């Protein structure tokens, strides 16, 4: 038995529900810090940015599941739904902090943001694209929709992930390294899919 097979064997016995519990801990911790002065003199921006960054990290993690299977033969697909739903949870909280705490439901300014500011529009579109994905992240939807339609809905994760990373880079001043890295990683992970498919088609034609 190879190492990958042995890892896969052990992973099958790991339940997914503790992942949801662990995944919510950073959010709870951030809220606690924000309420007790631990996020510095401007906790709203800090909370907004940290939640957004965790959402990006979880999106990266969810996009890594297939490449890990391809490269290392380690199968983490059972955990992907949990990672994706957590990412969506952080996206929604990030948006809620923007609406309720940052702009304090100032609808005039929110309306202006959503019509005039490209990076906000891009963030909002990415959030909207993730809603059908989150809503169909359950066994019943997979059965009811059939795998082709379900797959097409979940394809939305790719543009949403690139959109979310571009939203971050577009927001910042100058060219800091971190958002550039997020965007590069996201584009790389998404581009991997069609590139791999093309390579395999070519292989099959040669064979």
């Amino acid at each position: 038995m190879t190492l990958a097979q042995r890892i896969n064997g052990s992973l099958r016995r790991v339940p997914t529900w503790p992942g949801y519990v662990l995944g919510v801990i950073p959010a709870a911790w951030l809220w606690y810090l924000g309420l007790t002065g631990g996020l510095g003199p401007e906790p709203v921006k800090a909370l907004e940015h940290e939640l957004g960054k965790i959402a990006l990290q979880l999106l990266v993690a969810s996009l890594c599941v297939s490449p890990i299977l391809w490269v290392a033969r380690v199968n983490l697909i059972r955990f992907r739904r949990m990672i994706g739903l957590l990412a969506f949870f952080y996206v929604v909280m990030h948006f809620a902090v923007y609406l309720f705490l940052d702009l304090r439901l100032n609808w005039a300014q929110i309306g202006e943001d959503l019509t005039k500011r490209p990076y906000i529009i891009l963030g909002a579109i990415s959030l909207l694209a993730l809603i059908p994905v989150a809503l169909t992240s359950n066994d019943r939807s997979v059965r009811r929709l059939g795998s082709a339609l379900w797959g097409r809905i979940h394809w939305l994760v790719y543009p949403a992930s690139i959109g979310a990373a571009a939203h971050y880079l577009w927001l910042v001043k100058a060219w800091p390294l971190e958002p550039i890295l997020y965007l590069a990683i996201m584009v790389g992970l998404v581009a991997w899919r069609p590139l791999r498919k093309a390579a395999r088609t070519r292989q099959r034609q040669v064979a």
Partner: protein
Amino acid sequence: AAKLDYRPFAGERPGELNSFEDITSYNNFYEFGLGKDDPKRLAGGLTTSPWSVTIDGLVAKPGTYALEDLVPATLEERIYRLRCVEAWSMVVPWIGFELRTLLNRVEPLGSAKYVAFETLVRPEEMPGQKGLFQSLDWPYVEGLRLDEAMHPLTILANGLYGEELPNQNGAPLRLVVPWKYGFKSIKSIVRITLTEDEPPATWNLQAPNEYGFYSNVNPEVSHPRWSQATERVVGGGLFAARRDTEMFNGYADEVAGLYAGMDLSKFY
């Protein structure tokens, strides 16, 4: 830090003072890193004594002056609101002196129309200036029109809350122009040059469509990527309301005349 002797502020406070902690732990000073907490963490090692400032260009008395010779014996407190271009603000009790007293001492020539400023470049003490990936071109440079520089609201600050300026706030000498976005108020100044032509300004060079040479606080002219109509008040906690941004950051009565006849949406 050493205590300073100064004349307390007699004017009207623009709002409730931010705490010393707020003012010294939430800073944009890219020479030390891009995070708001980087300057406080990383500026401690900056050597600010000895310090000298070169004053050159169109002046009758150019030269390199030691900081002790530049700072006058009588300092005064100025409580100003600092409005960052990122749409947050805080109220700061600066200690300093009017820039015009310094400029008058070096005697600007009749041809001088602008004042250019330059920040220290010292990568070994300023980690944001080190490494492969640099956020901005150094040195950080800024500029004012001569009449803006001579305005009595424009000060050079060497202190804060009655003490010498902490490094993260631009020690030992920084500009404070309260009616302009914070990035115009250049920190850790090593050179002041009087020029005939408009001098380069770092953020203006970086993104000219986003940061104009004037960069006067103006709630009606949006930054291309965010509104400038309101601002977050630093130090208010998680549930603080936003504040309506004021024209010229609340100093319109004093400075609007400097821009009479100018289209402020064009000269932003």
